[in-house]
């Protein structure tokens, strides 16, 4: 059996420079074993400061009530649910990269999957905060769980999309966490076995669950990863579908559209990949991982961004068309009077520019492979996707059926903004800790593709590439 899988020579290597297995370990584990840099401390402290401000904002929310926010009639949802949907969307790229790309056998996922999965988990933690604290009386949050109680027992309404959301988000969080951690076990064992300090041996010894690298364990591990990927694929699609049901099953004009599930899922992948780009471009630079997260990786992700951005664009135009074609007065008014025009028209056009028009620049290969431009675009896309949710929520709510209940212009309070900034703090605090204490790249997975997709091995492929079919056949069959 030939170990070297024949792969096209013209494909870019997934790992640059001549590396062996040990070097892969050294390169990736380096940041765990070295002292954190000054830059790391600065970033970490800024994140913690933001987190603390978020905690204070939540303290105000709990102590004084939801009145600390500028929600009211008829805007029952505002920044909070916008942020919730935005963070859940960001939490989609990780599972998409690790699960769907695994099923599609995309080799390039190995460079970015670990960090993207971690990002998913942190983003879902951030997302979960918004509906929970929006409850106001947050100490009753457990009422959403179906547990036997002395109130009847009074069960939650299983027909409600809001309860579906509880199940979807918590399942998504649990499964993502299991998928991420089971993939981490072998790499944590790698750190454990080369640890020099007692403390590191102890901690990574506990964290790696006694992983040994036994062939049978690898076989089960492979099976586990594959099935978890198979489960996560419909799961990731279901989560944002269900989030979109929060809107789509209502009778609010601008919300009850059947296009929402696919449109939300595409948007989630779009914004998730943008966030992965933001983080990866910084991570590869700061942690010196350019050989593993190559320009090829960045370009591949930009291709996903331009694809999903175009799907989102189609959805926006379809919505507008149907609002006109459907001949429903309320639907028409929401879209043509209060969405693309009206007090919040600016946010609609900001969304259109960021999500539909500017990502089209990624059709140019030069721009797809330009790191500075990609970084800039990743921010633009995330701003655009935040405004998408803002537009959907606010522009549908601020003009009710009754003009007497129309809202004043909605501006968030400092504590509404503070809560949002606080989740940024939470997200980046987690990410900084992760990048310091965990292998940010899946070491074992990189090693398993090294011989088929590493640069030095690719070069050897050139001989095979230039062989005639007869020579190739003779060479590959002579030892049998």
């Amino acid at each position, binding site marked *: 059996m030939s170990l070297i899988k024949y792969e096209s020579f013209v494909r870019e290597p997934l790992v640059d420079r001549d590396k062996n297995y040990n070097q892969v370990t050294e390169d990736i584990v380096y940041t765990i074993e070295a002292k954190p840099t000054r830059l790391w401390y600065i970033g970490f402290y800024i994140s913690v400061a933001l987190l603390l401000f978020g905690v204070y904002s939540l303290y105000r929310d709990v102590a004084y009530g939801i009145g600390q926010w500028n929600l009211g009639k008829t805007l029952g949802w505002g920044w909070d649910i916008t942020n919730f949907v935005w963070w859940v969307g960001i939490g989609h790229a990780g599972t998409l990269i690790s699960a769907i790309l695994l099923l599609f056998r995309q080799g390039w996922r190995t460079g970015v999957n670990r960090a993207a999965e971690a990002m998913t988990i942190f983003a879902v933690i951030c997302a979960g905060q918004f509906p929970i604290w929006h409850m106001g009386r947050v100490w009753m949050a457990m009422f959403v769980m179906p547990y036997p109680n002395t109130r009847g027992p009074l069960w939650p309404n299983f*027909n409600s999309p809001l309860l579906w959301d509880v199940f979807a988000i918590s399942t998504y969080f649990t499964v993502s966490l299991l998928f991420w951690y089971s993939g981490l076990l072998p790499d944590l064992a790698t750190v454990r076995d080369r640890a020099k300090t007692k403390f590191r041996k102890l901690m990574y*010894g506990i964290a790696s669950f006694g992983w040994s*690298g036994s062939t*049978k364990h690898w076989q*089960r591990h492979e099976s586990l990863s594959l099935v978890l990927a198979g*489960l996560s694929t*419909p799961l990731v699609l279901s989560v944002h579908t269900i989030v979109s049901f929060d809107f789509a099953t209502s009778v609010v004009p601008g919300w009850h559209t059947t296009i929402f599930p696919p449109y939300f899922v595409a948007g989630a992948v779009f914004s998730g990949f943008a966030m992965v780009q933001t983080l990866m471009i910084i991570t590869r630079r700061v942690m010196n991982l350019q050989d593993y997260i190559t320009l090829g990786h960045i370009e591949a992700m930009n291709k996903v961004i331009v694809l999903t951005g175009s799907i989102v664009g189609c959805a926006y135009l379809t919505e507008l068309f149907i609002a006109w074609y459907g001949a429903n007065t309320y639907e028409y008014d929401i879209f043509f009077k209060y969405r693309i025009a009206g007090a919040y028209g600016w946010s609609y056009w900001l969304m259109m520019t960021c999500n539909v028009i500017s990502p089209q620049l990624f059709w140019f290969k030069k721009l797809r492979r330009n790191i500075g431009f990609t970084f800039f675009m990743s921010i633009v896309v995330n701003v655009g996707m935040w405004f998408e949710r803002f537009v959907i929520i606010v522009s549908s709510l601020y003009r009710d059926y009754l003009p007497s209940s129309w809202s004043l212009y909605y501006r968030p309070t400092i504590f509404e903004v503070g809560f949002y900034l606080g989740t940024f703090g939470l997200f980046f605090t987690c990410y900084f800790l992760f990048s310091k204490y965990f292998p940010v790249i899946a070491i074992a*997975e990189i090693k398993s593709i090294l011989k088929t997709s590493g640069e030095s091995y690719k070069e050897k492929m050139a001989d095979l590439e230039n062989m005639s079919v007869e020579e190739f056949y003779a060479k590959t069959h002579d030892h049998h």
Partner: protein
Amino acid sequence: MDIRKFVVGSFDDEAVLFPAVKKVRKAGYKIHDVYTPFPVHGLDGALGLRDTSLHTAGFIYGLTGLTTALGFISWILTRDWIQNYGGKPHFSLPAWIPIMFELTVLFSAVGMVLTFCYLCQMAPFVKKHIFHPRATDDLFVMVIECTSKTNVKETEDFLAAAGAKEINVQIAEAGWWLGRYDQDSKLFDNKSETVTA
């Protein structure tokens, strides 16, 4: 305690490891295990391991989740506490599909991971003997178990001929125990008589 004697050969290339595994098995040696830094495809087959049934377990857990969700929700909404939600039928299956799906995935994933940990005997504070610290880095470590008939010297020579870079003999616990990796837990001091070979 399950203390045995092993001959350990470390290879630095999986392309050498494969023919070595074949040769060692053909010669009749008992391979305890091969420890690799990443999943080497086809190695389980070469070692004669049967395919894992973990995915079947996952399927069963999934079905359990599905029936749990369906049974629980239909019991609550049609028996235990009947409520009128907008005049809709009490048994409204389409509205339950999202939660039924989520619980299928949840049960399957959690069950599979727990089963995986159980089968591989993995948990926090579980400790196992490390035959070579570089088995999780860049070496492929073949561990041959010594039986009463094994000639250690001959085995070592055989491994060297098969391409092993480092060869040594170790007396070690074959299973797992509770311990910390920063401490050498002395499991079998002065108990050399328990060694079976």
